[in-house]
């Protein structure tokens, strides 16, 4: 870790190109430990999955080393067990659709809740802000599984939510929330809310309120100030938060498993089924690649949006 900041700052005595080469070398050197770690324990092993997606499934699990397109084929098509007729794999499509829509809804709701929350925190006196931020993150020091169980406790038929609603006379009989898509949605909003609040806060903390002041001076209404001044200014935070929520939502496993009751799968659960009881690793691998493709699309949207923001800025 010798003087990371220095070489780039040193005046280019040996000419522009040499300095540039030195800078590039320094940057690569600094990034190397992280890259080695990732190649060893994250990205590298993923190549295995790519290879597995084009092999034959093994008898009990694993793969047989024979090329086969069956795994990919079955992502989209379903062959009937008994009469071999082909049809579109609507079960898969349903699961993709459910994953995408729950993730989008999660993103939207966390944004609706998170934006005012972040704004509220950012407008506290500076000494209080850290305290509020801590309050947002403290629940996250408890394990995800335990928190998910706690949510189950809140929303089950005789749970807090139903019994209070009944006491207040809002409902007559308990509403079945547990084991529905709504339960999964509630769980996901809960789990990912801080991932929305934190980047939004980071963006809002830098917000120049003189601009807001100026807008009011020009007789803008509150709504216009919000939509025309504040939102555009914190847009990078909105986009970053949405990405940080949307992508992990797509791949969520624990929340749908515990709160969805095993009937309402999302993509991750389907993939796990193929690697587990389904004993079809190539299909599982191909489904993983499909999910990855979804994520790439989301990221492309992100990059495009960001470059638009930068061009404007």
């Amino acid at each position, binding site marked *: 870790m010798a003087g990371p900041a220095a070489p780039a700052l040193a005046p280019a005595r040996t000419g522009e190109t040499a300095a540039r080469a030195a800078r590039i070398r320094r940057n690569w050197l600094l990034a190397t430990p992280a890259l080695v770690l990732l190649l060893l324990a994250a990205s590298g092993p993923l190549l295995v999955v790519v290879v597995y997606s084009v092999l034959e499934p093994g008898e009990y699990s694993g793969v047989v080393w024979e090329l086969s397109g069956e795994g990919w084929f079955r992502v989209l098509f379903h062959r009937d067990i008994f009469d071999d007729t082909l049809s579109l794999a609507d079960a898969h499509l349903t699961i993709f659709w459910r994953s995408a829509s729950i993730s989008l809804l999660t993103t939207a709701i966390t944004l609706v809740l998170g934006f005012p929350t972040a704004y509220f925190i950012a407008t506290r006196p500076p000494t209080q802000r850290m305290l509020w931020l801590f309050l947002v993150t403290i629940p996250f020091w408890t394990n995800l599984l335990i928190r998910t169980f706690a949510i189950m406790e809140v929303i089950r038929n005789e749970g807090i939510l139903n019994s209070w609603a009944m006491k207040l006379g809002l409902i007559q009989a308990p509403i079945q929330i547990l084991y529905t898509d709504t339960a999964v949605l509630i769980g996901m909003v809960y789990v990912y809310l801080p991932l929305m609040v934190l980047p939004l806060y980071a963006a809002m903390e830098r917000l120049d309120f003189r601009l807001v002041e100026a807008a009011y001076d020009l007789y803008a209404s509150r709504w216009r100030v919000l939509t025309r001044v504040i939102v555009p200014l914190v847009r990078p935070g909105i986009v970053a938060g949405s990405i940080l929520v949307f992508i992990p939502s797509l791949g969520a496993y624990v929340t749908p498993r515990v709160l969805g009751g095993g009937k309402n799968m999302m993509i991750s659960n389907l993939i796990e089924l193929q690697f587990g*009881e389904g004993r079809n690793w190539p299909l599982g691998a191909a489904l993983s690649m499909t999910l990855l493709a979804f994520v790439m699309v989301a990221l492309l949207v992100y990059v495009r949006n960001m470059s638009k923001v930068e061009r404007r800025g």
Partner: protein
Amino acid sequence: MNRRLTGALSALALLALTGTAAAEGELNIYNWGNYTNPELIKKFEETYKVKVTITDYDSNSTALTKVKAGGHGFDIVVPSANYVPIFVQEGLLLETRPDKMENFKNVDPQWVDVPWDPGRHYTVPWQWGTTGIALNTSIYSGDPNTSAIFMDPPPELVGKVNVVPEMNDVIGLAIMYVGGEPCTEDKNVLRQVRDKLMAAKPKWQSMDYGMTEKMSNGDVMASVNWNGSTFRVRLKNPKVVYGYPKEGYVVWMDSVAVLKDAKNVENAKLFQNFIMDPENAALISAFARYANGVKGSEQYMPEDMKTAPEIVVPEKYKAAGKFLPTCSKAARDLYTAIWTELRK
């Protein structure tokens, strides 16, 4: 302060890395979570001066996948009956010949020549039980002794039934419900099985585990469930009864096997012999509340288990109980295909 913190952390990490170094005698057990009585382990440790480590898994397939990948460090695994032949066929188990061990004489004869391990060359009984129906009678007072509770739920139970996500149990029950034999390859029977299950699924509330909790507190009103779990539910909620489907119900057993790449083979064998002792076998049952396969263990069991209708199968229901044999590959493939379709 930062530097000291980093120092402390790396010391902690070092400690963790070296902490696994071999003690005098060790035994690594890979078992279902919350399934191993700590008292049993303590007794074994004290008797043989061996340090036992328990690691949990949550499904047969996770256990198989990990053991097959290798490099896991486990000595003992406790697969369900239908997974034992897979472990054997894949060459993952060591032939420890429990049938020649000292305590083998205690094993109940009905558990010796079992289809998954004829003559017990690999495995020792851990616990056995049945998969039937748990029903909360406060909502439905009909007969609980039928698979119709989940295959054809009565109106009172629509949207309130759970099915535990165990492929072999559920498919087995469904096959017997439509009149077939377990392990059948008959496509007409299996088509019926699939169509019936697919038609019933929308009437289910969930396909989940954890029924001991959820049936006790009334979140779920009926479920395909295991007998021991239902027994524990009844102790909390007396309205819950256990039904033995007359169309046929599933009898299962989990067995203790030693892995071929085990590092502590001798200790593992000692453990196999150890749990065939009636007193020790009773300790297993007292914890997870299932019967074991060892004669004479009853006298050491908790009082409430000796008479429980969930544990001691009533005479009139005995005939309907079927052991799931190990099916042919063709049958297994069909079952898997039906199951995956159902889970989606």
